[in-house]
């Protein structure tokens, strides 16, 4: 419940950010650099979270940055969930050589540290948002694949699968209509966790300036910009850092809540 509300607020804020923001988040205004947060002393017209070293309003940058973070996270999670689930379901249901091939490939992917792979690929392809999404999908689909495969293998051997076969159901019907709904609960939990993870990884890559490129704001590169001023002007790091933390937490809570709601055993 808390998760759902917070996540909804975050999504709405980033959707309506063009209406809310009063300052251009990209243009410099050196006379206003490093102003401390005014919070809501002047309503939405003030520098709510202060300004950064180039005099840009941090609140505006935060909201605009959230659009990129959420957009990237949503695309990455849905794409990798789609790829991972389909491969995992095929692997778990059919077994045999197909299973061996897909699983060995997954293990190769898992043997490479995610962040290192991401850094390498971004360095080769060049940092832009499209490449960032591709990199994150490459590193995260394996988890969905493994999870789906293992759960499908468990469910495949339950008697109702045999029962629906005995009553005339086809392979694809059994795979996607009978078995798949039984594994969605775990998938939803993983998706919500991965959502948080993706936002974090995106921030890490942007922090290393391999993700979203300046002047477009992203929480990661905002933290990177602020780290030189951490002692003297901590709000530059705190605002995006806390936003990051709240967002990741919210999506994790959302996943937990969804699991409870979707559990068919709940009466």
């Amino acid at each position: 419940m808390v998760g759902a509300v917070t996540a909804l607020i975050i999504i709405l804020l980033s959707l309506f950010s063009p209406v809310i923001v009063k300052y251009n988040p990209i243009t410099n205004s050196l006379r206003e650099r490093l102003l401390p947060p005014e919070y809501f002393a002047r309503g939405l017209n003030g520098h709510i979270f202060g300004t950064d070293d180039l005099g840009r309003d941090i609140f505006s940058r935060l909201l605009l940055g959230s659009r990129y973070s959420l957009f990237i996270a949503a695309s990455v999670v849905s794409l990798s969930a789609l790829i991972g689930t389909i491969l995992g379901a095929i692997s778990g249901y059919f077994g045999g050589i197909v299973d061996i091939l897909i699983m060995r490939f997954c293990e190769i992917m898992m043997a490479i540290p995610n962040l290192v792979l991401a850094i390498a690929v971004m360095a080769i392809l060049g940092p832009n948002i499209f490449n960032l999404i591709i990199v994150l999908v490459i590193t995260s689909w394996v988890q969905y694949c493994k999870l789906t495969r293992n759960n499908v293998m468990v469910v495949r051997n339950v008697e109702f699968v045999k029962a629906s076969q005995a009553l005339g159901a086809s392979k694809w019907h059994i795979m996607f209509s009978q078995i798949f709904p039984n594994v969605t609960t775990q998938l939803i939990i993983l998706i919500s966790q991965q959502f948080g993870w993706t936002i974090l990884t995106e921030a890490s890559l942007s922090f290393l300036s391999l993700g979203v490129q300046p002047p477009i704001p992203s929480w990661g590169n905002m933290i990177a910009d602020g780290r030189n001023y951490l002692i003297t002007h901590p709000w530059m790091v705190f605002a995006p850092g806390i936003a990051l933390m709240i967002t990741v937490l919210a999506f994790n809570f959302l996943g937990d809540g969804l699991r409870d709601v979707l559990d068919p055993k709940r009466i």
Partner: protein
Amino acid sequence: MNTDTGTLLEINDLFVQYKTERAISNALNGLTMRIKKSESMGLVGETGAGKTTTALSILNLLPKPAGKIVSGEIIYNGNSIIDMSSNQLRDIRGNKISMIFQNPLTSLNPVFTVGEQIRMVIQKHKKVSKREADNMSKELLEIVGISGGRIHDYPNQFSGGMRQRVGIAAGIALNPELLIADEPTTALDVTIQAQILELMKKLKTQYDTSLLMITHNLGIVSELCESVSVIYGGRIIEYGSVRSVFGDPTHPYTNGLLGAIPLLDGKKDRLHAIPGDIASATNVPSGCAFHPRCELADERCRMEIPQIVGIKENHFVACFKKTEGL
């Protein structure tokens, strides 16, 4: 006995193997069986004798890749089930031949309401709208004694006995010609067993369905079936009308099985137990599979497999000792 009606299902000399990395298990070793239209046949035997394998073979649903039909034929209404394409098979499953499973707790999908599960079976085989299918599901639930208003409930909201009724409702949804019931009452307690049997009896007379009742409960067979086949080591060793087989059990194994049932009246004696263990499917004894446990066994029983021979009308036995003089 409906001796005048035709044969619905014919299994001839069926051999089924399960191959695993460690061993080959010979589950069926020349099983032969005949089920007539609207006949109810009981298939009894110990755990591991091949009862469930027989049922799964009839639907061509042996677990892949381990299970394999090595030789023999299964003829349903004149067509060989083994040679059917998977499309033809799916057409038959649920529509013509249907099955009720042993464990009602696991044979329903927990994420669908019971109505949806019955509806899926109906829509798979019949072109009907969702609403019509829903109405049919409701009727089916009423037939098996569950209020039609419960089609929107999930399986976990039902008790074990009621779930088995749902399983039966899904099994009879399309009015199949043959219903295979694989120990449908084993997981239920005695009073619920009685209810389910009563229900199956009622449905059988109502729909004129052939029934293959797989069980190790001889009481159920005498209650529900007209004929009975006794399976041992993957072969039928005695077959006939329930009256004849249970009244005059001829094969030493059937004799032993019936001797192991406690009687309510008569003198209280120690129950007769068959010595030894059931024939192992990984290492089936040569000759008559029962010979290591049989008091009458001699050299011939160890060497040759006895063929099933009629000893009177509607009573067949596979035993050298009992059929020698005939």
